[in-house]
Every structure is written in structure tokens, then in C-alpha cells.
């Protein structure tokens, strides 16, 4: 009876110990391949799973990329997810990785590979020997693609903006010319001397048409006026 009790106690204890020390980190399977246009970036989400009933402290180690070609410029890898944190129990935790492909010496088809590591961090210390940490690793591959062609909409938008600016500029010039025509540079008054010697004046703000009309009036009056016989 005592033996049974002891064995059941040991079983429970071992289960508890195993539950504490065993890592519960997992990952969603599948290759992670970036195909990044030169001078552009691409973001891909990795999913790490905590299948355990307690939170897991983690640390992300971004890869040291191995180039397949010599004289290539290594892409820049960043994570918008904090590199250190905690994953809640029974949670699928997303890690967003962004790869920027610099132009440098890169040509389409150049490729790199590396391993992203998500390691369970523990406060365990070992007085001599090796501390074993567990985690998940995702092998990633990156390849360079042709630079993105500029979107034709950008060209069209640019042309429209230029046209609008030109139209406004033209309108402004016309308005300023009109304003100038209304008398800003005209003499303070316009004197019209008719053939019969009369002098008529028009206000400067009046348009030339008005002056013309006045001139017409003068000429018509001259026509109407009877000629003096000598």
C-alpha cells in the first residue's frame, strides 16, 4: 500500500517537474521565402505557438544571412514584434519579419538564407556544464527581384498636378494683366481731343471701350452739327 502511494506520488511529482521544465513552444510548419524587389521591402508573419498552460518568456534571434553570391549587399531584416517578451498560454503568437532589399551590388536572382530563432528564456543557472535551452527555428530564404516599376498612376497624378498649377499660374497672369489694363499703369485721366476742338476726358478706371464710345459720340456730334458756311 505504501509502495503504491509512493509510486503515485513520484508519478505526480515527475509529471509536475516535466511540466515545468519542458518547453511548449511550437511553430506553424512551412517554408518562409521572401522574394523582395530591389529597393523595396516585404513583410511575412511567422506563427509561434505556446501549447502550455503557463506563459513563456521568449527571445527572438534574427538570422545571420548567408549569401549565395559573392559581392552581394546583404538585405536588412527587422522585426516589428518585440525581440523579447512573453507568450501567453495556448496562444498563437505572430512575429512579423520585414526584409528590405538594398540596391547596392544586388541583382535579381541573388539569394540568401538564414535561421530565425525563437528561444525560451529561463533564469536557470548552471554551475559548470551546459545549460540547454529549447525553442523553435525557422529556416528562411530571401531572393532579390527586379525593382518595382513606377506605378503609371503616379505619372498621371503628376501630370494632373502640373496642369492644375499651370492653370492657376495662367489665370493669375491673366488677372494681373487685366488689372494692369484697368489703369494701374494708365495715366490718371484720358483726354480726347475731338476734331472740333473740344476736349473730353474720361476717368482712368474706365476701359478703353468707354473712351472709344466717347470718341464715337464726339464724332457723331460733329457729323450732326451743321457746317458753318464761310
Amino acid at each position, binding site marked *: 500500500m505504501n509502495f503504491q502511494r509512493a509510486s503515485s506520488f513520484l508519478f505526480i511529482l515527475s509529471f509536475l517537474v516535466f511540466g515545468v*521544465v*519542458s*518547453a*511548449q*513552444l*511550437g*511553430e*506553424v*510548419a*512551412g517554408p518562409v521565402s521572401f522574394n523582395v524587389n530591389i529597393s523595396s521591402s516585404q513583410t511575412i508573419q511567422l*506563427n509561434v*505557438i505556446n*501549447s502550455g498552460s503557463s506563459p513563456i518568456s521568449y527571445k527572438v534571434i534574427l538570422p*545571420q544571412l548567408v549569401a549565395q553570391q559573392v559581392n552581394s549587399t546583404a538585405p536588412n531584416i527587422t522585426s516589428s514584434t518585440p525581440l523579447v517578451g512573453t507568450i501567453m498560454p495556448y496562444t498563437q503568437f505572430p512575429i512579423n519579419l520585414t526584409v528590405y532589399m538594398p540596391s547596392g551590388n544586388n541583382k535579381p536572382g541573388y539569394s540568401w538564407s538564414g*535561421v530565425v*530563432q525563437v*528561444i525560451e528564456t*529561463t533564469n*536557470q*543557472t*548552471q*554551475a*559548470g*556544464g*551546459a*545549460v*540547454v*535551452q*529549447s*525553442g*523553435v*527555428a*525557422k*529556416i528562411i530564404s530571401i531572393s532579390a527581384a527586379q525593382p518595382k516599376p513606377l506605378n503609371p498612376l503616379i505619372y498621371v497624378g503628376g501630370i494632373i498636378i502640373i496642369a492644375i498649377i499651370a492653370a492657376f499660374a495662367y489665370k493669375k497672369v491673366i488677372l494681373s494683366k487685366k488689372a494692369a489694363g484697368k489703369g494701374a499703369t494708365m495715366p490718371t485721366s484720358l483726354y480726347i481731343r475731338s476734331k472740333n476742338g473740344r476736349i473730353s476726358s474720361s476717368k482712368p478706371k474706365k476701359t478703353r471701350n468707354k473712351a472709344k464710345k466717347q470718341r464715337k459720340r464726339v464724332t457723331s456730334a460733329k457729323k450732326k452739327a451743321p457746317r458753318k458756311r464761310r
Partner: protein
Amino acid sequence: MEKLNNVDKVSIAALLLMSISLTAAFVLSPLSGLALGANSLSSNVIGTVTVPSTCFATVSNTAINFGSLAPTAQYAPANLVVDSNAGGNVAANIVVSGTDWTSGGNTFLVTNTVWNPTNTVTFTPSNDLTAVPVDTHIQISAGGSGNIYFGVQIPPGQAVGTYTQNIIVESSC
């Protein structure tokens, strides 16, 4: 206009209610032809969930004690059991990496630690542990388990000390 008495009011209200209920029954009657009551409302919500392939791996212990070793001595093998957590549904590849051995200001290289899928750990040639993760090609099926063996060699003339190292064992799928 004649004033309505209370009875009329009640009957009009009843008629209105009837018409509303009839209208409701007409609008909400299911197209599937199920025999439901006049005022019954039924709607089907289709739930979908995609279960992806996942892998997990756990290690049997969190420390390996290689004991006391003199310079140039080799220790092999130290066994580490790797289990694939039952939560996963595909096989996991085991990836290993590590850090340099340190004791205060003294160090020796991570590559002095070697690994092997079998207990015949050899130091020449060897599978050196490196700072960069390496695929061991040890595959643990879902729910299964496997072994990885570690050994260490102390460099000649290594300073006295108690050295520690981190060995990182990861699943990859």
C-alpha cells in the same frame, strides 16, 4: 366622424397585431422548406477553421553536466532526449546551436562541443556545435522521440575554472 368605443379600439389593435405577426412570418420563413412555426426564426452560421501543420519539440533535461575534465580530455557522449510534443501534427527537424564556454574572463570556443545522432560521438571528424544554427537532420515524428548526443573536448592549456555554455535545441518544420 364617429368616436370609436373601447371594444372597437381593442379589435383594431388585435387586427394590427395579427397583420404584423403574419407579415413577420412571411418575411422570416426559411427558404429551406423546414416546417417551422409561424413566428420561428432560424439561421445557419457556417463556422470554418483551418488547422495548420505544426511541430513542437521538448528536451528531456535543461542541463548537461560534463563533469570535471582536464585539458585535452574528451567527454562523450552525453545523451539528450528530444520529444515531439503531442500538440504537433508533423515531424520536427532538430536544429542545434550554442555559445562559447565561459568561466569569468576565460573562454573556449563553442566548436569544442560536438553533437551526433548516435552515441558514437567522434571528435575527428565531428559535428561541431556552432553559434549559427545547424540542421542535424534528426527528425522526430509527431508524438515520437529521438536522441542527440553531445561531447566536449577541453583545449590544451585551458585555464582552471568552472565553465558554462548554452546549447540551444530547436524544432523546425
